[in-house]
Each structure stands twice: as structure tokens, then as C-alpha cells.
């Protein structure tokens, strides 16, 4: 138990919607627009929470449980999430599986809620989400496993604080491959370009958005906040793996971590500004490619 870990939990709760704001501002800057305010998502979530919700008669309690359980599961990952050199609130050997399983629970409930509507759109989105996340999960697990092997522990906190600059550069090729795989997973799981387009209004092309079309009001606010949190969680895993600033000073570590998260948001915005989405049929190739990178990283670490 590390009381300082609550700092990271608080940061995640407070700052995760800001990341979306940074991504959107980056995209607007590249396009020559002024863009939405940095704090737009806070306003949107607050506005939605004040609204009433409309429920279709064809839906059951599963539909209402979806957003809440998904948010709860995502929140559940935060105590196990280290930030750079800063250990999480709780850790034990193998806690990375807990984090991935909790993210899986969140997805499972979102998919169930989507199927519960009986809409052909949502069913399509659910099938896409499940297909692609089944391919993204191995890339994430194996990428983290490569890090764990390098550090000698399967606890996220041990892995993160143990990954000093010296260790990182010693296994630089493997760490870079793992980071690249995690970046692909980060983009895919958070419905960003080139896998999904968060800005599109075209239901037929959506993956994640189409599953939440029927949610409104507070439910949708919870979903928006939940996806911002998920972005933060997966972003944290990526920054932990790719930015080995581990000094004895908590302040420097925390600053480096936050700078890393900011840079990741800007990078995401730049990727979205510079390329088109992949054809849906090509997304599995990208994800399998990410898994191959993770496998290579493991081979390099085991060598």
C-alpha cells in the first residue's frame, strides 16, 4: 500500500478529460482552426449529467447497467496503475492481469448493452469491437510481458519503477518494439484514427461510437468520462513503458510522467491529422502486426 499512489488516482480522475481536449486542439491547430475549448469534455459531461435519460422499451436493465459498470470497472484499474516512478496504491505480482481483466469487463458490459438494444447498427458495432479487441489484447499482454521479463516482475508497479533509464537502454530495441505495439493498442482501444474515427457521424463506419448511439443524458455523460479514463489508463501504460525517467525525486518523476501524457495526446492529434482511417478489413492486419512486434520484443528480451 502506497498512500502517494492516491496522487496518481486523483490526477487520472481530474485530468483524463483534458487529454481529449489536447488531442482536439492539436487537430484543430493543424487544420488551421481555433478548435473547441480545452475543457470542453468537462462541460459536456457536466451538461449531460444534468439531463434526463430516454430508454427504449426494447431494452432491459443490461442497457442501463452498461455505462455504470463499465465506468466502475475502469475506475477499478486506477489503484493498480503506477505513474512512471510513482508506485500505485496497491500492487502484487500479476496485477497487470487484473487491470487487463477489468478493462475487459468494461468492454463486455458496453457490448452487452449495445446488443441489448436490438438495433442492427449497435449489433454491427458490437461485433466489430469484439473482433478487434480480441486481436488487440494479445498485443497488449505480450508487450507488457516483455517489460515484465526485462524487469523481473509481473506487477505493474514493479515493472514501472524498476524500468530505469539504464535498464531501458540496455534492452532498447525490445522496449521500442513493445512501446510501438502499445501505441497501436492505445489507438485501437480508444477508437482513434487509423482504426476508428471519433469525429465521424457515419454510423456504418463506426466501431466504438455506434455501440453507444442509444445512450443519452447521464448515461452518455458517464460513457464520455469512462472513455476519457480509459484513454488515461492505456496512455499511462504506454508512457510508463516508453519514458524511463526514474529519479529519486517524486516531483521530477511526476513532472516527466505528466509531460509524457501531454506529448502522447499531441502525438495522437498529429497522427489523426496526418493520415486517413484504414479500411475496416485491414484493421486486423494492423493489430496482428502489433502482436508480432510484442512477440519480437519478448524474443529479444528472452535472448
Amino acid at each position, binding site marked *: 500500500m502506497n498512500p502517494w499512489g492516491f496522487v496518481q488516482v486523483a490526477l487520472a480522475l481530474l485530468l483524463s478529460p483534458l487529454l481529449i481536449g489536447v488531442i482536439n486542439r492539436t*487537430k484543430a491547430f*493543424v*487544420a*488551421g*482552426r481555433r478548435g473547441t475549448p480545452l475543457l470542453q469534455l468537462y462541460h459536456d459531461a457536466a451538461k449531460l449529467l444534468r439531463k434526463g435519460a430516454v430508454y427504449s422499451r426494447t431494452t432491459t436493465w443490461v442497457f442501463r447497467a452498461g455505462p455504470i459498470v463499465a465506468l466502475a470497472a475502469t475506475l477499478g484499474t486506477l489503484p493498480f496503475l503506477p505513474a512512471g516512478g510513482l508506485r500505485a496504491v496497491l500492487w502484487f505480482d500479476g496485477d497487470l492481469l487484473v487491470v487487463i481483466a477489468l478493462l475487459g469487463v468494461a468492454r463486455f458490459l458496453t457490448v452487452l448493452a449495445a446488443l441489448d438494444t436490438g438495433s*442492427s*447498427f449497435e449489433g*454491427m458495432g458490437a*461485433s466489430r469491437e469484439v473482433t478487434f479487441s480480441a486481436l488487440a489484447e494479445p498485443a497488449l499482454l505480450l508487450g507488457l510481458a516483455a517489460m515484465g521479463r526485462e524487469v523481473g516482475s509481473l506487477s505493474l508497479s514493479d515493472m514501472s519503477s524498476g524500468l530505469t533509464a539504464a535498464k531501458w537502454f540496455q534492452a532498447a530495441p525490445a522496449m521500442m518494439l513493445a512501446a510501438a505495439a502499445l501505441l497501436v493498442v492505445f489507438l485501437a482501444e480508444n477508437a482513434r*484514427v*487509423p482504426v476508428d*474515427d471519433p*469525429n*465521424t*457521424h*457515419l*454510423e*456504418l*463506419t463506426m466501431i466504438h461510437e455506434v455501440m453507444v448511439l442509444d445512450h443519452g443524458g447521464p448515461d452518455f455523460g458517464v460513457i464520455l468520462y469512462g472513455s476519457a479514463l480509459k484513454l488515461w489508463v492505456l496512455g499511462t501504460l504506454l508512457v510508463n513503458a516508453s519514458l524511463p525517467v526514474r529519479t529519486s525525486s517524486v516531483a521530477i518523476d511526476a513532472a516527466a510522467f505528466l509531460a509524457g501524457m501531454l506529448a502522447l495526446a499531441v502525438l495522437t492529434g498529429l497522427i*489523426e*491529422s*496526418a*493520415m*486517413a*482511417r*484504414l*479500411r*475496416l*478489413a*485491414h484493421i486486423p492486419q494492423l493489430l496482428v502486426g502489433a502482436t508480432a512486434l510484442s512477440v519480437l520484443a519478448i524474443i529479444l528480451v528472452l535472448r
Partner: protein
Amino acid sequence: MISNGRPIPLGEVPVVPLPEFRDRFLQAVRAGAHISAVFGHPADGRLTLYAVIGQAADGVLSVFATEVADGYPALTLVAPQVHWFERELWEQWSVRPEGHPWLKPIRWQKGGEPCVMDYFPVRGEEVHEVAVGPVHAGVIEPGHFRFQCHGENVFHLEVSLGYQHRGVERALAGGPGQRTLHQIETLAGDTTIGHATAYAHALEGLTETRVSARAHALRGIALELERLANHTGDLGALANDVGYLPTASYCGRLRGDWLNLTALLCGNRFGRSLVRVGGVGFDIADPMPFLDRIESAADDVEVAVNLLWDTPSVMARFEETGRLSRETAIELGLVGPAARACGVECDVRHDFPTGIFKFAHIPVAAASTGDVFARAFVRWLEIQRSITFLREQIQQLPGGEIRSTPGPMKPNHVVVSLVEGWRGEICHVAITDSQGRFAAYKVVDPSFHNWFGLAMAMRGQPISDFPLCNKSFNLSYCGHDL
């Protein structure tokens, strides 16, 4: 045989017996002619069926007619490009084309018979239906799309329209009146100049009004500005649909630049009130601001559009998506950029030129692959050629009055007026009665020919590529529904 915009007395239209009508029809279609319009016109208790067939090779249109009662053997079976017209005939006049493979109204409910919402079903354990619309997520017109899918793949798409039906053709009969030109300008709001020009040509033919060279040039300029605005907007929208932001953002603004040029010409961004029977309502006093704005917009469009061809992730989405073969395009009678993208070199400005296009030739832009890329690239070629045309025309505007006063219309005449709008061939047919008023006014918007092309392009495609294919056709709902 008549030429574009030249009226002939109604009595000179050959009214032949049904078998001969059929023979003439098939002969023309087999020789590669394009059906511009097929419509019915009731007279003396009988329905006269008119066919307007464009023979691009000779630059003439053949018009002939027959009289039908309750039914006749469907021409669709041997000439597929007439299938939509025959469904329209059945819908409007209850004349049954016997043996039509999919006889169902295209706009409104007829009661009892197969209705607009009965779709061609595909049955089986693994087949599912996806219904999209008529209310869409974007700010677009209403229309319903019914997909028969196997997983992510589309077996069949059926497009059902009619939500925008306003009864324009019926309102136009008995005219022209004070409202007529406004109704024409809003047949399809994004093709204001195209439809207004077709209408003006028809009426100038019927009233034997001489239009000055300057007015013709100004109409040509407005028509090409309309094409530029829409093509630029379409390329931006295509980029937006694949999530490629740079071109999407630039083209959105640049479309506005072209629209503003039209506004500079006549005070309205869509060119309302510009085209008038007998000429145009507004003149270009000083060509310099036009030329300056055209140059700066042309430079920006070049940069923005070339980004598309230079970005591999964009090309990966455009190429091989929504492919149509040349044979299919000809069989379905597609028009405009959608047909030219399949290598069908049809362009009214080239085949049946009127006005300024008799003197200033714009080369036909064509591609061969028939996919989304080809439809985008044809638009880019046309943008370049239209800009060249604008530069030339604005620099050497002929002198003269811009408008002359039309006289009365000739009674009992028929005139066919074709214009190449930005979506393709616009066909207006006017028939006058003994008082010199419209006995019938038939409008065929290019979308009428092309909607089924979109349905065919979706066969065997992933359903997630539908928005992209749809945008590459970018058809009008109200232009179809009228």
C-alpha cells in the same frame, strides 16, 4: 431527329405503333445511345409515351412516341437503362410494363401493389438486414437505404426515395408563371444554374429569343463556378469520410470561395436569379476581382487536392472501392462524373453543345477504373479544366446586351434541352398546348439515372465503405423526387 434546344411542332414527332416504337428504341440502345427521358403525356383519353434518346455520335436527339393503354411489354428486359423510367411511368400513369423484373413505385405509395417499403429480400440463417434512414446523422436530405448483408459484406442495396417529393412537374404544367423560374432554380438547390440554364434554353427555343454572346458566356461562367464549388466540396467530403483532415478542412473553405465568386457575380452564393429567360440578370463590370480570386482559389485547391493523391492511406481507401465496370455504367445509363469515371466519355458540353460551349470546348475528363478513386480523380480533372475555361472566358467577355425580352411561346411544339450540370446530364422537355402554355414539363435530374449505379457499386463491398461510395456519387434526393 432534333437538336438540343431547338423546338419542333408536336405534329412532327413520329407517333408509331407499339412494335415499331419498341424496334426503334432497341435499335438506338443497341447502337450505344443514351436514354435521356421516357415519359407519358395524356391526351384525348390516351396516354402518349415519349422517348427522348441522345445520339452522342451525331450530336442529335431522337424523339418519338407511341400510344399505350393499360400495359405494354417492358423495355427493361432488353434495355436495362430504362428500368427506373418504367417504374416511374407505372407510378404516375398506372401503365404496367409487363414483365418488369422489379416493378415498384419509386416515390410514392400506390396502395395495394408492391409498395415503396417492400424490399428485395435475401433469406438465410446468416443474412441480416441493415436499415439506414430516412433520418440521417448528418445535415443531409432524407432517403432510406436497405442493405442485405452477410456479416460486413453487402449482397444487395436497395435505395428507396420519395421523401422529398414536392409535385414540381405537376405544378409546372400550365405555366410559365411568376413562380416557374423559382421552382426551376430549386429543383435541386445545388444545381440552380444547371437547371435554370436548361429551362432558359428550352424557353428561348420556344419563343425564338436571341440570346447575346455575352449572356451565354456569363451563363457558362456561372455553370462552371457551380461545378467547381460542388466538385471541391465533394473532394473535401470524400477526405472527411476517410478521416483525412487536411483536405477536408481546406476544401470546406475553398468550396466557399467558389460560392462567393458566384455571389460576386449575382449576389447569391447558389446563383439564384442569375439565369433569366432571354439572358442573365447580372453582368461582370470589372473582370479583375474575378481573375484575382480565381487565381488564389485555384492555387489553394491544387495544394489541397494533391494531398489526397500523395497520401498512401487515402489512396488505400479510394482505390478498388465501389467499383463499376464500363459495361455496367453503359447498361444502367449512368451520366456525369460517375459515368466518365468508368470510361464512358459522355458530356453534354461536348456531345450536344449549346450556348458558349459551341465555341469554347472543354475536353471530356474520363478515367477507367470506375472506383471511388476514379470518381474523385475525374472531379479533379474537371476542376482544372473548368478553371482554364473561366480564365479564358472572363478575360475575353464579348460585348453586347445581357438580356433580351422573350416573346410568346409557340403553341403545340416540343423542345428538349440538355445541360451538363455538375452531376451530369440535365434533361428538360417542354410540350406546349394550343395556347402556348406548358401542356407538360418533364425534368430528368442526373440523380435519376445514377441512384441505381450507387446500388450496383455497393455489391460485394464492405458495408463500412457505403458512406464513402455514397459520397463519391453525391446524388440529389430532391432532384430525383421532384
